């Protein structure tokens, strides 16, 4: 196989930007307007999901009214595709959800099945966010150290760690961007499961990069005379089959099955992982490896010069 991937490196950067930027801008706009669907995991509050049967079919507005009668006026009610009602409000005292459900039974003359009740205090939410950021930071740092150690035999081992981490942040940005779009269109909630998905993407993203880098490591001791650019391209092509088979055929099939059959709770989680892990494979080939070449050539010195720069698109 003779595919020139490295030569087209700037095209891939543009593709990535085209995916990241719109979602990121959308996310920022939503955040500024306070419309970001942060779950109570982060903001604190109470969520009640119920299913009504054998009675009236209330509209969400009826439930909002019922909350108001009890004295809670900041509730938001959604209906799901499963015919359940999800009400989110500020944090309620422990006995209030029980009262609300009793009221519902009376008012709508229906059997109420409680699917879930969740209450999270505001301080907990703030702490999750901080801890998650810390977890990502620590993970990134330890992984850079490990890669530097594992690649100590070849020149500039440190670069491999840094490039893997940059590509990892690229994956994180793609996931955030897609989630912002998903929450805008389908009302996905940004919750603790989203965090789990994100952290997993980070884990597997690095795994992918190491497989590609490992081939570069091996080849650089075999083909000492080869220009670095050719060497990297050759390594990518060699690992391409494995990347496609592992990622697309096995992991993605599993996640696709989870996303399609895994129930509502897991749906946003599975889609986020599916996109994130796909992106992890993409970036290990088109971002991480190409960054190595850019670093080797010190290409940024040419970025702002005109005409004579041959590398830019």
């Amino acid at each position, binding site marked *: 196989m003779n595919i020139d991937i490295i030569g087209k490196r700037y095209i891939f950067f543009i593709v990535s930007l085209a995916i990241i930027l719109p979602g990121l801008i959308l996310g920022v706009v939503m955040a500024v307007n306070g419309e970001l669907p942060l779950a109570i995991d982060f903001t604190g509050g109470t969520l009640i999901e119920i299913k009504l049967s054998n009675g009236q079919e209330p509209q969400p507005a009826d439930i909002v009214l019922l909350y108001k009668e009890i004295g809670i006026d900041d509730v938001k009610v959604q209906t799901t595709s499963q015919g359940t009602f999800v009400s989110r409000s500020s944090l309620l005292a422990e006995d209030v959800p029980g009262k609300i459900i009793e009221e519902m039974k009376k008012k709508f003359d229906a059997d109420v099945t409680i699917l879930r009740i969740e209450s999270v205090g505001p301080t907990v939410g703030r702490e999750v966010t901080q*801890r998650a950021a810390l977890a990502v930071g620590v993970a990134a740092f330890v992984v850079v150290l490990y890669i530097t150690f594992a690649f100590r035999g070849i020149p500039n081992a440190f670069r491999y760690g840094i490039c893997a981490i940059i590509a990892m942040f690229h994956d994180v940005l793609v996931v955030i961007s897609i989630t912002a779009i998903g929450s805008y269109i389908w009302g996905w909630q940004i919750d603790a499961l989203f965090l789990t998905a994100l952290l*997993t993407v980070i884990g597997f993203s690095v795994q992918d990069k190491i497989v590609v880098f490992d081939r570069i490591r*091996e080849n650089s001791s075999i083909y000492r005379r080869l220009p670095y650019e050719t060497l990297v391209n050759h390594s990518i092509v060699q690992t391409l089959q494995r990347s496609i088979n592992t990622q697309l055929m096995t992991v993605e099939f599993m996640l696709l099955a989870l996303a399609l059959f895994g*129930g509502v709770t897991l749906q946003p989680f599975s889609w986020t992982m599916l996109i994130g892990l796909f992106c992890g494979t993409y970036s290990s080939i088109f971002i991480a490896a190409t960054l190595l070449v850019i670093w080797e050539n010190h290409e940024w010195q040419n970025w702002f010069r005109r005409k004579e720069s041959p590398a830019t698109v």
Partner: protein
Amino acid sequence: MRSDYKYLIPIIIAVVIAIWIIWPNNPGINIAGFQKEIETRLGLDLVGGVQALLEADLPENTAIEPEAMRTATRIVENRVNGLGVTEAVVQQAGDRRIVVELPGETDPESALATLKQTGLLEFVDFSGLSPQEVYSLTNQEIQTDFGQDNNLVPSVETPADIGVGSEIDLSSLSNRVYHTVMTGADLKSVQVVTSQTGEYQVAFELTPNGSNIFRDFTSQNVGESLAIILDNKVISAPVINEPITDGRGVITGNFDYDTSNALAIQLRYGSLPIPLKIVETRTVGPTLGQDSLQKSLIAGVVGFTIVILFMGLYYRLPGLVADVAIILYAIFAFALFRFIPITLTLPGVAGFLLSTGAALDANILIFERFKEELRSGKPIQQSLLLGWKRAWPSIRDSNIATLITCAILFWFGSTFGATIVKGFSLTLALGVIVSLFTALVITRALLNLAINTFKPKNFVKWYGI
């Protein structure tokens, strides 16, 4: 030829053990006093139940004594055990939080009320005990008949005569069941007061109901001791000096300000060394749990089938061997989850499915190298050996990186009490480790065996080159 079988026997033994562990209704292990139950533990999100996060109700920057937090956790655990929920979990999370999980609990309100209660305060009849006996029981744990079934008759036998100066048999005293006169629920208010002579006293006021009980009891038992029991521990046993008829009384003793205040606080708030508040609760109804379990199982079966078909079709003989290995992998991993045991949550199941991908990745890496070597014209045996040797560094490094992330996720989940994150990282990490084992030992042994047995000549047909 013989070396092909070398690994086969231990593998078969391991498989048999694993299958025995995952066999439904496994009776558990009971050998020479070593007992272990074997069961699949499903998390709250799959069976339904209540999860609560308790936090020390102190300003955020106060340092909290680790010992006090451990005591608080133990007391909460005692209360939870009183709820009668099987497999309830009480764990300290970080240095100021306690996670409580009650699988199968459907009444969140009463469960939370139990957690929030200020400790079970009982006034217990110590009549008939000598002062030495009362003294020796102070700060000991005793049993009372409060909340007991009626068929459990409280022991009414009079204490054995104990001569003055003889050893007091503490164990026989603390093994008895004492009668609870009333509980702290009848206590209306408690405060520290000073007497006219300047001594510290603890004054209390009772509810009308409590006043009646107290009037009857104290008038019949003047001169006897009435013990104050908190979460089954005797904290004080004052002597009844005179009948208390109006529901107001004082506890006197050798109190200074601190000791009287401590007693008053215990009476008021219960025995927790640190005040706790509930900062997070999650209740999952049983229907949602069942639904999630069913759907994720279907998803798992569908995903698994597709992957197995793909491997067989694409990699042919090695693919089929990998399929056997991956099924064994699933059996081993599941057996481990049951044996340790690890509570399976929804993200945990997802982590398990993902680690299947990781397990196949190791196989795929090896097979791709194997095919490369074959294409370059090397003989099968040598290609196989080289495939393994060359794929190993990337398998090792990439999996170590995943394990690092798992460790950090686990730390994140356990300090914060996010059990879903913890469950996910644990199943993923275990999956990765088991997958390395199956790829490196089982696939290798089986593939060697298969190639030597069939001696395939047609590479295109057998290896899909």
